[in-house]
């Protein structure tokens, strides 16, 4: 973290004076379980990407490649919505054991 500012250096009323700053705020560290991606079962329907409330599903060239664990909160919505291939899920949740 950069040096903390003094009170006179702050924007009025605690405003954050630019947009898109949520990406700088790492919220993934209180996750109790994490999504595991099984590409062999993925049909690239992108349901997970649409449903993830934290935009934590990573796409490359329009295809799911994994999860941004700095922002994934482990809610499991992606795993719940994932249709998978022949009823075998392409996302499963695994408990965080650290």
């Amino acid at each position, binding site marked *: 973290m950069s040096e903390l500012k003094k009170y006179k250096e702050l924007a009025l009323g605690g405003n*954050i004076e630019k947009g898109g700053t949520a990406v700088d705020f790492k919220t993934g560290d209180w996750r109790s379980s994490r999504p595991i991606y099984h590409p062999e079962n993925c049909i690239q329907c992108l349901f997970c990407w649409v449903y993830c409330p934290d935009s934590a599903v990573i796409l490359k060239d329009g295809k799911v490649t994994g999860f941004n664990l700095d922002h994934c909160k482990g809610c499991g919505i992606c795993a719940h919505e994932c249709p998978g291939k022949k009823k075998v899920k392409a996302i499963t949740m695994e408990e965080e054991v650290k």
Partner: protein
Amino acid sequence: MQKIILAKTGNEAMALAMKQVNPDVVAAYPITPATEIVQIFSQYVADGEVKTEFVAVESEHSAMSACIGSAAAGARTMTGTSSQGLALMYEMIYIAAGLRLPIVMADVNRALSAPINIHCDHSDTMGCRDAGWIHIFSENAQEAYDSMIQAVRIAEHQDVRLPVMVTTDGFIISHGMERIDTLPDADVQSFIGKYDPMMHLLDVKKPFTVGAINLTDYYFEHRRAMVDAQNNALKVIKEVGQEFGKKFDTNYGLIEKYQLDDAEVAIVALGSTCGTSKVVIDKLRQQGVKAGLLKVRVFRPFPTEEIARALENIRTVAVLDRSDSVGGFGGPVFTEIRSALYGSAKKPQISGVVYGLGGREIDMEQIEGLFMDLKAGKVKADAVSYLGVRE
């Protein structure tokens, strides 16, 4: 400039000031004895006399929430309330100040329940004294009208950027009809000027976040910045009051001294009681009693130094509080004034007098009696007493 003389109640006077300010948004919910302010204003809206967006909400909590949203969006925003309504706003009151939104509110001072009561005391706005709002009391409808106009300039000043509440005494001022001097619309408009919101959420070219969380690392710094803004307001309120005087003939400051400089006995008061006290002082002065009054017009920011200077050479002072800090050492005005004088080399004998709760009448005889008791040394110094209650 031709002033327009009108007969107006305090509520009508405040509604007229709001009309002439012609704010972008008013969000309000009715409550006795402040209902008329927004009711009259809503008629102005219905008649097309203002361009204001009037938001009729379902509670005062929503009223202040809507005001916060509208002010953050960059709109010049006003509202009005009283007592329980202000109490219901309480959560949002702190947010409006913390987000540094220059909302202007008319509040008609009224007692808080229970027991339920609709009459004047200052408990409602005193309950918000630590929220960061600027707090201006009015002696009469004229001051209420003038202060509502000045409040817009004070709130929006770039060194201040805090919400302002202008108050009147419930029924005594709100419903009492007076002769007041009003200004032409154009003069009010040129006095308040065009609003520059500095940052606003409708500015899509400069996106920003309002109301982000601040934990142990930054909350304290933001509150500290509000202290500076309140201190800056001491200067800004005087400048705006003097400019008002230069343009419209009546100067306004933080305090008003009435026969105070050579006084031996003095009282300190807020609001309508100051008017009553002035009449008593005139009478006592004719009898050779050196009586005086210190009127506190602005309670937040508290004019600590000015008050200490005004009172330090007086022999005996009673501080009148129309609200009580139950379980504390006297009402809020007494504790602050006694504290303000602590550093003075010379200080008066000082006592706190709580009076008028729930609209209990305070008349000239009582004030005269208080002055005579002060003069005779019958009021115990450094103690709090209750005037007009059956004990």
